[in-house]
């Protein structure tokens, strides 16, 4: 665990409005290099919106984003990609008519290192093996099942050799066996020095994996700290009890 204290990503007072809806309310957070930073919150809390703002998909209504010290607030997604920010999507977005291999090559070609085709192909092959999709290299992306598509997204993001990786519910829809495989992979990614921000609903996973956790509810921060601190925070418990599914699981003791 090589975490030094350098802040690699800073979100400062970011708000995002969509018409009358305030999706993000003065969110401020700092992510240190090399850490795994978890983001949790009930459904609709604004987690994916936060990623979209960090990533450049939408500009924030207010606030600033700093990546490695540089103000990247209004830059479009491809500029963020060039600077070393990669991302997976909550609802997977494979490039359907291209093969798995072509998808990952695309990740390598246009990411931080902006590699030429031959080098990109070699990196792509490595990443495909790393996520375990080697046998399906030549399959069309649209023909994969959900778990495989998630792995494809991951490989594609990794092929860009990012400095910071944004994972949006990468465990959703996976069975326990697949989850445990994915957790191992995520740990291996961190060991390579990549900083990870993860949105996740699976409590045991994110609590186990994260160095620090940030909790969003209705677009605003309600807690931040180590997994221990956050899970004992009464405001967090209240926010989740408002979520009937979690309340039930609290009662069952499976949270």
């Amino acid at each position: 665990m090589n975490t030094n204290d350098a802040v690699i990503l800073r979100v400062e007072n970011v708000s995002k409005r969509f018409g009358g809806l305030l999706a993000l309310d003065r969110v401020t957070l700092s992510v240190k290099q090399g850490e795994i930073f978890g983001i949790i919150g009930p459904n609709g809390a604004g987690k994916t919106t936060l990623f979209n703002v960090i990533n450049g998909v939408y500009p924030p209504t207010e606030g600033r984003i700093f990546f490695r010290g540089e103000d990247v607030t209004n830059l479009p997604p491809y500029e963020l990609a060039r600077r070393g920010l990669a991302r997976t999507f909550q609802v997977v977005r494979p490039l359907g008519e291209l093969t798995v291999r072509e998808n990952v090559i695309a990740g390598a070609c246009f990411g931080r290192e902006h590699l030429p085709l031959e080098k990109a192909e070699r990196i792509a092959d490595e990443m495909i093996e790393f996520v375990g999709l080697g046998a399906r290299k030549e399959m069309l992306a649209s023909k994969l099942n959900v778990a495989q598509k998630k792995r494809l997204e991951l490989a594609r993001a990794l092929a860009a050799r990012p400095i910071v990786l944004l994972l949006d519910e990468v465990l959703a829809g996976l069975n326990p066996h697949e989850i445990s495989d994915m957790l191992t992979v995520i740990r291996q990614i961190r060991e390579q020095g990549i900083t990870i921000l993860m949105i996740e609903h699976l409590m045991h996973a994110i609590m186990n994996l994260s160095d620090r956790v940030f909790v969003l509810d209705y677009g605003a921060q309600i807690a931040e700290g180590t997994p221990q601190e956050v899970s004992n925070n009464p405001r967090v418990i209240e926010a989740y009890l408002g979520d009937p599914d979690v309340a039930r699981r609290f009662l069952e003791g499976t949270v």
Partner: protein
Amino acid sequence: MHTLKSPFFWIVLIVLSALAALPVLTNSTAMREDMFLILMLMILASSINIIMGYTGYVSFGHIVFFGLGGYVAFFLTREFQVHFVLAALVGGICASTIAFLIGLPVLRLRGAYFALATIGINEAFRAFFTNFEPWGGSVGMFFNIAVYDAYGGAKNAGQLAYYAMVGLALVTVATSFLIKKSRFGLGLMAIREDQDAAMVLGVHPARYKVITYTISAFFPAMAGAIFFFKNGLIEPGPAFELHRSIEALVMVMLGGYGTVTGPIVGAIVYERLRGFLITDPTLSNAHLVIAGVMLLLIVLFMTAGVVGWVRQRVPALRRYLE
């Protein structure tokens, strides 16, 4: 470069050259006329494939570049006795420049809006040229037969035009290949599949689309220049005939969009079929109906076209059949 090592690349070029050489070897003017037209359609279809098949942007009015190239080159050859190949090159450059300037704003539109805009652009240019008296207005321009003397007479000029068309077809196909197998081409296809995801990966969509559109305008323009040079007459109607670009689209769909060989196959099959239908006495009136039915069947059941279908059914071939 990567592509030049691919054997398929050379196979396609050689086969195409062989086909093109047939009329010369057999000294058949009829066959040469036939091939001339097919090559021209191949060039149109391949160019549309470059913008549509690779990026997914449907340029319905693409024929506008055919007309623009034709008019510019015709004017240069007629007024300044510029050699027709040079005039064609200038025509190509003019068309590409216009594509670049128009492309910048227009390519920001998505889907149907872009398609409609390209139709509007074609119609605007056609209406303009119909009124532009210095270049013939609605009557168009024509060559005094003496123009061909510089080329050794009209017959010789026809021969030369044929060779030029062959050369252009080879260059177009080669370019289509090079784009497809390059990193640039991968970026285009990412845009086609999911433009927003492509942006997140790091692709700069506006830049890529505009460059592609500019390239895709060059070849139809030169084809138009060569065609009208040989024709000796250029009029706004035939130069900007919307139907022709739609036919080119059909050829791309028939053969398989997003592939290099698709437009080639599509052009050949479509033209052969059309020729057959028109010359057959019972079917000639029905050719439009039959073509329409064919198009509908392809659209409903075989969207990937002939080449695409083969690639899907025989995955092993996918790597080799581009």
